[in-house]
Each structure stands twice: as C-alpha cells, then as structure tokens.
C-alpha cells in the first residue's frame, strides 16, 4: 500500500503542468526541463515538468556530444539507489503493477530474455542514435506513446490532423505491451527498459541494498515467489528493483535494508 502511494506520487508530481491545458501551450518550456526525473517520463507529455533521462542521453549521442551531465546524473542515482526508482517511482512500473492485477491467464517470461534490455541499451539507445542521429528509442517507446502521444492527440486538433502511420505503429507497440502487462509480471522492466539496464549495473554497489541474515535465512524461497522481478533476494541480483516485497513476506525476518 505504501509503495502504491509512493508510485502514484512518482507519477503525479513530475507531471503537474496543468497551466498548459488552460493557456493552450502544448508542453512546458520552463527551466525545470533542464533536470531529469530518475525514471522514464516523456518530456513530450503535456503535463511533464522535467526531462526524460533516456531521451536526453540519446539526444546528446545523436548530436555527437559527450553527455557528461546525464551520465553523471545516472551515476549518482544508480550509486545511491540502484534500481530503487524502478520499484518505487516509475509511472510505467505502476501501470504494469496495476494491469497485472487483472485476473486472467499468466505467463512467465524466460530468464534469458532479461539480457535483452542490455541489447536495447547498446543497440537502440546508444549505437542507432550515434549512427543515424535520431533518437530511436523515443520513436518506439511505449511509455512515450501512453504519456505523450495519446494526450497530445486528445488535447490538440492540430496534432490530430497530423496523425499517420507512425502513430498507428506506436499504438500497436503500446497495445502489445499493455497486453503483456496483464499476462506477465513486469515484462518491460525485466526485458526492455534501458534505464533499468543502466541502474542494474550499479545494483551491486548501490548504497541502499538488501541484506540477508544467513543465520536466519533457510532459503524457503517465499521471498523469491513474491518478487515481481522473479529474482532470489539472497543472491545479490542485478534485476532487484528494491521494492522490498520480499522483506514483507519473509517469515523469519531474515531480510533487512542496509545502507
């Protein structure tokens, strides 16, 4: 419950530019856009006050400038929190968690698919923008389609008149992901998200981490069953989103948060 409230705040607080809806300005153009939120949050969203770290990273790569600021920013967030932002404040994570509650058949994503997010990071976020000077992940990002594409088409008649095949393709990608969110747990976080891939590299050394008391843990795996990412907390795992669901369910209180 606590996590849901924080996730909801994480989705609402960076997206509070309601003035634009009154003044007719499509997106916020003030100085706050110079700062990134630690999660995927499309800056094309009419309500968004901040920049998206993945979009910003791609932009710098596309204009062939070394992205000191954004790399440093991701390093700070990663070193302090690891993938904590994924589990607690990512708006797309919230969408995934809520859709997974729909009762229907469920599938488990094979573990090998977890490494695909590093391919996305290297191929679509770094190499393709470097070679073609276009932000390719933004063009495919389902989060952008949900939080920027749909709202802009809804609020602006000019945007509606521009809708074409590209929008249709983006909506198909979004539809596929929304369906996957219903039938599998955190498929985007575990297999696609390039930001999660970056943060996961810091998970082992992050300041906030889970600590397992080996004298109390009997490896009953109740924690692993409750984990939305399907990882075993007693093995330090790159994919742990530090949601602390495992800590809640551990019958022997063997899992602690350590700094």
């Amino acid at each position: 419950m606590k996590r849901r409230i924080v996730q909801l705040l994480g989705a609402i607080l960076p997206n509070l530019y309601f003035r634009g809806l009154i003044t007719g300005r499509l997106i916020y153009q003030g100085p706050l856009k110079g700062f990134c939120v630690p999660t995927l949050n499309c800056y094309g969203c009419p309500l968004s006050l901040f920049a998206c770290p993945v979009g910003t990273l791609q932009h710098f790569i596309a204009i062939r400038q070394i992205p000191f600021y954004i790399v440093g920013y991701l390093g700070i967030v990663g070193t302090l929190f690891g993938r904590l932002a994924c589990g607690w404040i990512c708006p797309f994570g919230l969408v995934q968690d809520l859709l997974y509650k729909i009762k229907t058949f469920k599938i488990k994503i094979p573990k090998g698919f977890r490494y695909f997010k590093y391919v996305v990071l290297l191929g679509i976020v770094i190499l393709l923008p470097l070679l073609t000077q276009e932000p390719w992940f933004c063009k495919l990002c389902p989060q952008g389609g949900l939080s920027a594409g749909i709202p802009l088409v809804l609020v602006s008649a000019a945007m509606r008149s521009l809708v074409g095949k590209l929008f249709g393709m983006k909506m198909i990608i979004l539809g596929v992901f929304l369906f996957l969110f219903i039938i599998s747990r955190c498929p985007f976080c575990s297999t696609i998200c390039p930001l999660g891939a970056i943060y996961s590299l810091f998970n082992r050394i992050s300041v906030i981490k889970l600590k397992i008391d080996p004298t109390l843990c009997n490896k009953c795996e109740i924690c692993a069953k409750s984990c939305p990412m399907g990882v075993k907390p007693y093995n330090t795992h790159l994919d742990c989103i530090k949601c602390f669901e495992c800590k809640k369910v551990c019958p022997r209180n063997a899992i602690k948060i350590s700094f």
Partner: protein
Amino acid sequence: MRRKSEVRGQKSEVRNQKFCYLSSIICLLASVLLVVIGIFRKEIAEVILNATTLCLSCIGIG
C-alpha cells in the same frame, strides 16, 4: 575444520563489503565530477532546448 571455513567465509564477506563501499564512493565522486563538468559545459541549456522542443516523430505523430 568447519569453523575454519566459516571464518574464511566471514572474512570474504567483510572484504566484499569493503569493496562495495569503496566502489560506491569512487562511483559517486566520479559521477559528481561528470555532473560538474556537464554544468560548466552548459549542457543544462542543451537539455532544456531538447526537452522543450516537441519532437513529433518521437511521440509518433509527425
């Protein structure tokens, strides 16, 4: 015999913990340095310019 392996395990855990602390301090300092360099290179202005320009193809419209 068992005690010896336990002690060895504890020692390696302490070493591992030290390595983690040291790595996180180095990473944090390096990241802060990168941010400072970025600010001096006026990258924030570039971030604002990029984030306030509506890229139609990025949101799937144009």
